[in-house]
């Protein structure tokens, strides 16, 4: 089974510029997550989708971050304008609707550097 695909793998931008990340989850996985992992910390959830609807975006800085999941498959996460503190790895994950909640799979992430 193919894993969670993310692109680009690396991105360097200047502050105040915009950037977008793409995620393709495992086929059939209804739930998609975006996590932010700042260097030296554990990942923190930004947003969770169930199919193409938002389940939880309470930790998403909505003044600069946006995300969408059209047609309940691929997802994009955008930052506009970027700040220095947005430098981090952005991890996408997906899971199937099952109990217990196993089958939670992560992509390899996008490392963003804001200079």
């Amino acid at each position: 089974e193919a894993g969670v695909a993310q692109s680009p793998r690396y991105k360097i931008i200047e502050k105040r510029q915009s950037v977008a990340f793409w995620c393709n989850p495992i086929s059939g996985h209804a739930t998609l997550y975006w996590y932010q992992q700042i260097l030296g910390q554990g990942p923190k959830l930004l947003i969770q989708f169930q199919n193409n609807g938002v389940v939880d975006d309470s930790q998403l800085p909505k003044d600069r971050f946006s995300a969408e999941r059209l047609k309940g498959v691929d997802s994009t996460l955008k930052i506009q304008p970027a700040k220095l503190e947005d430098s981090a790895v952005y991890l996408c994950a997906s899971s199937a609707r099952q109990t217990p909640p196993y089958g939670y799979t992560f992509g390899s992430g996008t490392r963003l550097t804001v200079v």
Partner: protein
Amino acid sequence: AQTVTQSQPEMSVQEAETVTLSCTYDTSENNYYLFWYKQPPSRQMILVIRQEAYKQQNATENRFSVNFQKAAKSFSLKISDSQLGDTAMYFCAFMRPSISSGSARQLTFGSGTQLTVLP
């Protein structure tokens, strides 16, 4: 809100020896799930082992085992016969139980322990 604490930022172990990584958590839930993930330099989170809180028996996966102490809210990972390939960042994570058909299933991570296996 749940919190997960890993108090050992770095650890090292000699190849073939045993090492234990510590994790404590705080929750008011009675049923939940706990996980240990490994993150090598490739950045992909790899599931090492999982534990359901309603199970008293500690989970084991080959060289990996946990010591789950529910009353103490402690969830440590023991790696036996350490191998060079075990070198990675290890994260302890907590997941609330499903609360509806939509289900949260969000992971709350600790800050991680960098494990280095020495030859």
